[in-house]
């Protein structure tokens, strides 16, 4: 068990309840660099492992504002500045007619920001990750729940962490090679 060759220590659980409980106890025990994996979203699990700042809403807000401004200014500039055309006697800057496209552009930019912002903040796409080296981890997308303590955690020590995880009564414990 050489510490620098190891990415972390992973425990496997049978149920969402067990994983949430284990995550809470691990975090309370002072382990900060941990992560939990589940086959479906579990409410409150992210908070248990110390994740509190979700930046996705901010990204979407900024995207929406940029989209709306782009939409309106584009129409204003094209219709009133660059090439004003008299159509049916309407003023070049006929703002009520510009609302629809402004709205659509707001939605478009905000939606694109939501998807690509989420992926970027999650560091995806990432086809390879050390956790995939654990054969049993394939079940994380089916019906098993995993908790990992990363070796970069200051409290991490192979034997001690193993004993700690053992105390959580997991189904199995695996080392994650890096």
């Amino acid at each position, binding site marked *: 068990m050489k510490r620098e060759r190891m990415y972390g220590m992973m425990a496997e659980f049978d*149920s*969402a*309840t067990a994983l949430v*409980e284990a995550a809470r106890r691990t975090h309370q025990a002072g382990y900060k660099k941990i*992560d*939990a*994996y*589940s*086959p*479906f*979203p*579990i409410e409150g*699990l*992210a908070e*248990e*492992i110390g*994740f509190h700042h*979700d*930046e*996705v*809403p901010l990204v*979407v807000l900024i995207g*929406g504002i940029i989209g709306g401004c782009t939409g309106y200014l584009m129409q204003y500039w*094209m*219709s009133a500045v*660059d*090439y004003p*055309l008299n*159509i049916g006697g309407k003023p070049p800057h*006929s703002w009520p*007619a*510009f609302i*629809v*496209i402004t*709205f*659509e*552009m707001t*939605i*478009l930019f*905000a*939606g*694109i920001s*939501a*998807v690509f912002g*989420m*992926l970027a*903040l*999650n560091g*995806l*796409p*990432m*086809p390879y*990750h050390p956790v995939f080296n654990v054969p049993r*981890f*394939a*079940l*994380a*997308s*089916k*019906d098993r729940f995993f908790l990992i303590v990363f070796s970069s955690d200051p409290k991490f020590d192979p034997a001690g962490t193993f004993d700690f995880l053992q105390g959580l009564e997991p189904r199995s414990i695996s080392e994650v090679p890096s």
Partner: protein
Amino acid sequence: MDEQYKTTVDAQAPVIEPGYTFGTVTEKISAIVLTRPASNGWFMGFGVAFMLTMMLLYAIGYLFLKGVGIWGVTIPVGWGFAIVNFVWWIGIGHAGTLISAILLLLRQSWRNSINRFAEAMTLFAVACAGIFPAIHVGRPWLAYWLFPYPSTMGVWPQFRSPLIWDVFAVSTYATISALFWFIGLIPDMATLRDRATHPIARIAYGMLSMGWRGSARHWHRYETAYLLLAGLATPLVLSVHTVVSFDFAVGIVPGWHTTIFPPYFVAGAIYSGFAMVLMLAIPIRKIYGLEDFITELHLQNAAKVMLATGLIVAYGYGIEAFMGWYSGDRYDAFTLWNRLHGPYAIPYWSLLICNIFIPQVLWIRKLRSSPVALFLVSGVILVGMWLERFIIVVVSLHRDFLTSSWGMYYPTRWDWMTYIGTIGMFLAAIFLFVRLLPMISIFEMRTLLPEAEVKGE
């Protein structure tokens, strides 16, 4: 058994039949894609749909060679089948977004078993819809003029026209629908990646899953993004058919120039969309044995939505007729008379029968829970909604203000080939979809199971 899972006679049908676990749900849905061999029926169905798609390409190819003169469109009816079919298809797409976004916001968890293929339906319907305006412009190789790009001519699109609003609305709708569908697929792609045995399948699903590993942090951001996207898609879907209705309502043609159009178009869109959802769901659940996931509850709820939106549509027809009389405008009054007694009276009366009278059978509980009856009623509604668009487009245009400019519209065989061809293309895409992607969202189904609940300490 949990409260919501009891199956006594009086209780509502369950969202998912009891007895499933995370493992069996995963197994059952992913097996359709990964291990189940394609049946002869699938090959036959796909073959027919594929041939119809080829017919579409032939009809479009000939159109490009000859021009729109091969269609029945002429003056005064310059908007024929192309616009009728465009509105029909885009309306069908609306149910997918309603199910995936609006019902998500309303916490209707029964949507979890039908949202995936309803979204696929949306995407394919929008693809079919998008063909029509592009080939209708006369010189389709210049269709990109619709977009504001810096051209050497120095001119820009006319932003005061609803037609250009429509370009933005529909292209935004197509983009957002595709993104929504895609992010919904990511966790399920990871499931297929981990379960596929064929190396090509592993690589393909692995790439599509973006390396998803189900981390709690990722799920948190994922759910936020999904919820926000649903919140954005909800006003978007309402705006799309509103803008489509502006294409008509902003014009001064009698029969078009009315403020009831936006809500009545949106209701009609959802009406026809749910009919298409049922026409797809009923055979699919039967063939792939998914009655446990798409239960009677889903069929009943869809039937209720159809009943409600159908009544809104009926109200729309009523108000149109009322305004024809109440406005005192002789042209509006004539439009009403012309619908009821003019040369297109048969389509109009058929429309009333298909959209208003026959769907009233859905009040009967027994029929709401009969898949065969629902399938037939849905087919009738789809025909009715197509006729509605035909009436709006053709009958309004063919006799407007001046008797000297009246005329008739007769679709040609090219019109029919193009229309039926898009149905083939739509079905071909559905056939491929059910074989290549999980047609029910696996991870959202897991959240419906009783074991997904986190019990307090």
